[in-house]
């Protein structure tokens, strides 16, 4: 019998072969080759006969809620923080006034590294990339006049996460808020620091132990708090591919699940409060596929491998942030356009919250003008674009479904390689993740240098004259103001109390106990971040960075 379809395909293939090809090879931003046309779903690993399932139902390929944005929009959450706690508190109030629906806190580098403002290593960095936080008083100032039972608060901090969480809980209690009503997220993802972000204080094993301490304490005492935001964002920023971002992040999440189970926790008591944080890069389709694959793999692992019974444990909820590394300092206003497409990808992929970068972020921290435009980008997407009208608008596209399955397959291959290296900690110690990421970053730079990838304003369509845009200047007085304030706190606190609280903290750490309760007591005695971290380092030791590249 004569096959009409194959005739048609042959005719198309002939015409395709005869057509000219552009000089830039058709690959994703991660370098994955893309076919000219897709005509099936590329395998049936997760569905039978092309059945994609329903949103809100296992395995959540099409989204974690039945109604998605028809019911409730994503949370528009812009990351902010600079200068003193008082300055950031003002920026928070400005953002809430403009219609932002949640807060997200950026801390300065000394805080992220667990150092006080008066440490010599902090010189020049105090309040520069985020808000400076030395003691409970800074935390009080940061959220002054903000109703912590009404607004959800995200805090991006990792190595000292447990110390900062103790400050937050102590601050909430001093103001009379009920811990059970607090909503928010602490990043608390130590593992990705070892892969990419490099804000590391303790060696890998005790770092994970502290992550689990926070999970254990909060799943009981602060039940609405997201205890880890398992983050691929920084892995991607460090130059990984989409598949690496996905694989390493999910592997990190699963490692926390295993360690929490080893602690004796019930999977359904903590898994619903693990959330995720992914990058939203330039390649719209690859990103949408990445988020869909993430949901499939997580749901499958939690249900089938770890025996979770509660559907909330199976659902992968994620925050997305547009890709900082995609922004350019040439023709910076063009960044607005990049960010808009990246935001579209996150929404088409079903994110629960979103940060859109400001156009000026390769030059400095965002100005109020730039951050307003970034937020407006989300509002246009939400209310004008139509992207929110139906659930999983790209579901069933041959291309998206094939990419989703392909990414899921690459993740499974990476899981095998990590197992083969002896598991997460052994793979970290062998430098596996860093090497994979650095290889990908170098390959990308090579592709850009060879003009296989064109970047507007950088290696194509350059302008002779660069337009100037106004940028935010951080007040140089921040550092000296903060040092003076810290000095005053140190003079007014009881040295005896401080010493006693730090001794108790060391004792609990030595005994292998959960250090969050003694940290809350220490916070109330105005122990500083640096003092608490030093006490923990006495017990856990310190990480030493390598020189491999």
């Amino acid at each position, binding site marked *: 019998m004569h096959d009409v379809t194959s005739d048609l395909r042959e005719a198309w293939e002939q015409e395709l072969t005869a057509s000219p090809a552009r000089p830039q090879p058709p690959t994703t931003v991660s370098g994955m080759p893309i076919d000219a046309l897709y005509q099936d779903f590329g395998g049936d690993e997760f569905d039978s006969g092309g059945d994609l399932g329903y949103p809100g139902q296992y395995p959540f390929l099409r989204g974690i809620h039945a109604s998605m944005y028809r019911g409730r929009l994503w949370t528009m959450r812009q990351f902010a923080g600079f200068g003193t706690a008082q300055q950031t508190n003002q920026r928070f109030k400005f953002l809430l006034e403009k219609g932002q629906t949640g807060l997200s806190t950026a801390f300065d*580098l000394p805080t992220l590294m667990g150092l006080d403002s008066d440490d010599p290593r902090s010189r020049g960095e105090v309040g*520069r990339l985020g808000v400076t936080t030395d003691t409970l008083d800074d935390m009080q100032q940061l959220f002054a006049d903000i109703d912590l039972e009404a607004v959800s608060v995200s805090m991006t901090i990792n190595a000292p996460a447990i110390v900062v969480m103790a400050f937050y809980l102590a601050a909430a209690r001093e103001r009379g808020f009920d811990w059970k009503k607090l909503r928010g997220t602490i990043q608390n993802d130590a593992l990705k620091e070892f892969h990419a972000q490099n*804000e590391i204080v303790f060696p890998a094993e005790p770092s994970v132990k502290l992550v689990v301490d926070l999970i254990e304490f909060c799943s009981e005492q602060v039940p609405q708090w997201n205890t880890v935001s398992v983050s691929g964002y920084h892995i991607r*920023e460090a130059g990984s591919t989409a598949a690496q971002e996905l694989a390493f992040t999910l592997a990190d999440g699963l490692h926390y699940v295993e360690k929490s189970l080893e602690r004796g926790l019930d999977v359904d008591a903590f898994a619903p409060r693990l959330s995720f944080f992914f990058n939203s890069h330039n390649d719209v389709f690859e990103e949408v596929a990445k988020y869909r694959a993430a949901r499939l793999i997580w749901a499958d692992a939690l249900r089938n491998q770890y025996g979770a019974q509660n559907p909330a444990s199976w659902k992968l909820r994620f925050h997305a942030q547009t890709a900082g590394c995609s922004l350019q300092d040439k023709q910076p206003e063009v960044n607005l356009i990049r960010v808009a497409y990246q935001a579209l990808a996150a929404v088409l992929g079903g994110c629960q919250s979103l940060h859109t970068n400001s156009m000026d972020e*390769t030059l400095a921290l965002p100005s109020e003008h730039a951050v307003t435009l970034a937020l407006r980008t989300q509002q246009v997407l939400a209310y004008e674009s139509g992207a929110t009208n139906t659930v999983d608008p790209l579901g069933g596209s041959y291309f998206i479904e094939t990419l989703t399955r392909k990414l899921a397959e690459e993740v499974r291959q990476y899981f095998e390689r990590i197992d083969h290296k002896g598991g997460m900690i052994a793979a970290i110690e062998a430098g596996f993740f860093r090497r994979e990421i650095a290889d990908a970053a170098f390959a990308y730079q090579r592709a850009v240098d060879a003009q296989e990838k064109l970047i507007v304003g950088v290696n194509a369509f350059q302008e002779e004259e660069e337009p100037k845009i106004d940028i935010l200047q*951080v007040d140089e007085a921040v550092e000296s103001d903060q040092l003076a304030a810290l000095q005053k706190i140190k003079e007014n606190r009881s040295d005896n109390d401080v010493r006693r609280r730090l001794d108790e903290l060391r004792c609990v750490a030595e005994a292998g106990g959960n250090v969050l309760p003694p940290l809350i007591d220490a916070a109330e005695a105005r122990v500083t971040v640096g003092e608490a971290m030093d006490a923990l380092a006495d017990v856990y030791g310190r990480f030493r960075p390598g020189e491999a*590249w």
Partner: protein
Amino acid sequence: MTERSDPQRVLLAKIGLDGHDRGVKVVARGLRDAGFHVIYSGLWQAPEAVIQAAVDEDADWLGISLLSGAHMTLIPELLRIRDEQGAHHVGVIVGGIIPEEDAAKLLEMGVAKVFGPGTPIQEIVDFLSAQDDRVEQS
């Protein structure tokens, strides 16, 4: 006196608390592939330690990567220590997020060149090669 043909030695370093090392690692590989002898300091170096390493390694160039905004505190200090140690022959180049006005000040203070985000590796290679004024000591 003849020009030296052995590769120029470049010490790349991260100073301060900034952990963004994507750029510095890409530059390290790129310069190595272009024939330079490359050493990388690792993260979180103090200016004194970096100058000491540059002297110990007999580096021709010191490439500082900084994305934290602390450059106007740390780079002048680094240059001062370099000069105090009598290591003027070590040229200093800087890469990272450096606003234009700050870049101009750094050049005035004695930085040889500031490379911003998106710089092709070849541009760095060309700059270092053009500046190569080393001669055989007879």
